[in-house]
């Protein structure tokens, strides 16, 4: 009796609530926000009101502490309707709140978490640099201790939630010295938005997640108190890897939820659209497409929920989270592609939500570790010789 696929009553109620929220409050505005590249403060606050920020954070810091499976269900349900809002939520939690909660000291947690969990402030994770993408260890942004302050110089790019009016702090990964083995010593430092020497620029013209916020960050002799160090000096690389393990689950959830949404749209359209005098879904060629989509979604859900279960039960889950991230993203790619195909010409039009799925899907193959990087992670876990690079 160990294998149990039932969600708890709490998780079922949560799914219903988030689905309601997404359908009633996000769906009516998603297309317009996407078109205008507009970040929604209202929806972000609503997600905070409903308790969706801080699902793994204890109540004393303003979180809801409902666990990883619940968190992933929430992201899944929002991504079913809109990738941009799911991105705000997933990045806000996995990249924003998570490092502060897991590595921050008591003072840092008390200072930042309550407003972050309320959805009235956002924090971001400054990792990627113009010349350090998949090779995240090659960061050039550096921080030098000068008396009681860190002096930071460098830049970051593609940082989600970093330049909104409520973006309050960025966890910046910086080189803080050289290790004994000659490699860079990396540390994470909390840099509040608005600190002199820290400037930001919102990135426009995205193909995907157009209503989510993405920024470029510049640090020029930016000074912050040395207490702003997150965790221990030199732990930055490890903190980054662990943060990304969790982040991958939420990206996978976006793939799963997005695919579910695209599939439902395709199924509905296939039942309604008639050609040659019958619904197009009744043609075997289309019915088989839909059958394949449903099967792939089911597979993805099983894999992702298992990875979440491992995470929630404090078991190693790096391999499974990489597998889930890669599979859910690539599966969303296939499902969105066929969903547009079933819509024919209409699927190319912005007034059909499936068009947004087709674009948004592509981010997931790239963000938080490309599909190729996930394969490196998986290959190393299954015991291939060498480092699979």
């Amino acid at each position, binding site marked *: 009796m160990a294998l149990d696929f039932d969600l708890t009553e*709490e998780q079922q109620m949560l799914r219903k*609530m988030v689905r309601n929220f997404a359908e009633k409050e996000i769906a009516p505005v998603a297309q317009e926000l996407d078109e205008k590249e507009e970040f929604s403060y209202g929806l972000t606050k609503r997600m905070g009101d*409903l308790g969706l920020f801080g699902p793994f954070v204890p109540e004393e810091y303003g979180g809801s502490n409902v666990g990883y499976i619940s968190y992933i269900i929430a992201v899944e349900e929002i991504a079913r309707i809109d990738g941009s809002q799911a991105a705000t939520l997933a990045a806000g939690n996995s990249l924003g709140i998570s490092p502060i909660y897991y590595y921050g000291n008591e003072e840092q947690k008390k200072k930042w978490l309550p407003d972050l969990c309320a959805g009235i402030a956002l924090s971001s994770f400054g990792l990627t640099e113009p010349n350090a993408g998949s090779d995240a260890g090659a960061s050039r942004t550096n921080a030098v201790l000068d008396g009681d302050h860190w002096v930071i110089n460098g830049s970051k790019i593609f940082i989600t939630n970093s330049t909104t009016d409520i973006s309050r702090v960025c966890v910046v990964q910086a080189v803080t010295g050289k290790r004994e083995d000659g490699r860079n010593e990396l540390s994470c430092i909390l840099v509040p938005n608005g600190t002199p020497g820290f400037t930001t620029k919102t990135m426009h013209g995205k193909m995907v997640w157009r209503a989510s916020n993405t920024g470029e960050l510049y640090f020029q002799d930016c000074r912050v108190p040395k207490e702003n160090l997150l965790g221990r000096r030199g732990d930055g690389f490890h903190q980054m890897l662990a943060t990304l393990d969790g982040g991958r689950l939420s990206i996978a959830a976006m793939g799963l939820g997005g695919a579910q949404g695209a599939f439902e749209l395709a199924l509905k359209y296939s039942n309604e659209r008639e050609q040659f005098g019958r619904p197009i879904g009744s043609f075997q060629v289309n019915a088989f497409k839909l059958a394949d989509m449903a099967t792939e979604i089911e597979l993805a859900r099983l894999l992702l929920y298992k990875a979440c279960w491992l995470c929630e039960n404090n078991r190693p889950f790096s391999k499974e989270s990489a597998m889930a991230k890669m599979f859910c993203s690539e599966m969303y790619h296939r499902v969105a592609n066929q969903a547009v195909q079933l819509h024919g010409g209409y699927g190319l039009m912005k007034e059909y939500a499936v068009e947004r799925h087709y674009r948004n899907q592509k981010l997931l193959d790239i963000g938080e570790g490309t599909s190729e990087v996930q394969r490196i992670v998986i290959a190393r876990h299954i015991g291939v010789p060498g480092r699979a690079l």
Partner: protein
Amino acid sequence: MKIAVCIKQVPDTTDVKIDPKTNTLIREGVTSICNPFDEYAIEEALLLREKHGGEVHVITMGPPQAIEVLKNALAVGADRVYLVSDKAFAGSDTLATAYALSKTIQKIGEVDLVICGKQAIDGDTAQVGPGVATRLGIPQLTYVSKIREINLEKKKIIVERLLEHGREVVESSLPALLTVVKDINEPRLPSLLGIKKAAKAQIPTLTAKDIGADENRIGLKGSPTWVVKVFSPEARGGSGEMLKGELTEIVPLLVNKLMDTKFIK
């Protein structure tokens, strides 16, 4: 103030299918929800509590699985919930149901206000709310779209009723029973913390004996109404017509057609 809210679990469908042999609802494959109008009743009670303080008690009568709608009520913030459930209630019509609910409210005791949805989307009778008021001997204010004023000291309430040809402003003494329409508010969603609390909660079940119900007034014995047959009427004949063109042209055309067919005068 102490408010009781009566809610009902209904099938989540507007396309109710009836088993032709048993004349009962086919529940297979149909999920259950809280009657939508009752969600407005709960919301109004929560809004009143926020304004005047007090407690919100939510009651449902139904089979054990009806507990689900009570959990939702807890999740959005109800203080106490009660499942009124007993085999003895089986077959209760609106009269017997109104009696059982009124006995439950009496057991809760000293309520200032009872709120119900205007009707349930399955039976659509709109009888249970007024029936409860009658059995409690309190005024009934149906189809309420707005509460204008509540004065707890003077035990007075002023509401707007949504009628077919306008709104009626009515003043009544308290305690009273309201049935509410969808215009009255926008029901909230539960928060994750609310859900967490509700999922863990143990929900008390009240039996016929617990509420002191007279066995001759509940279940089939207490129900003068017998359902002989339930069926979906045949669809009306005729075919649709698509009007094409500019709005300024097709609107008058549509109005004329509706007048020709005597749908409007």
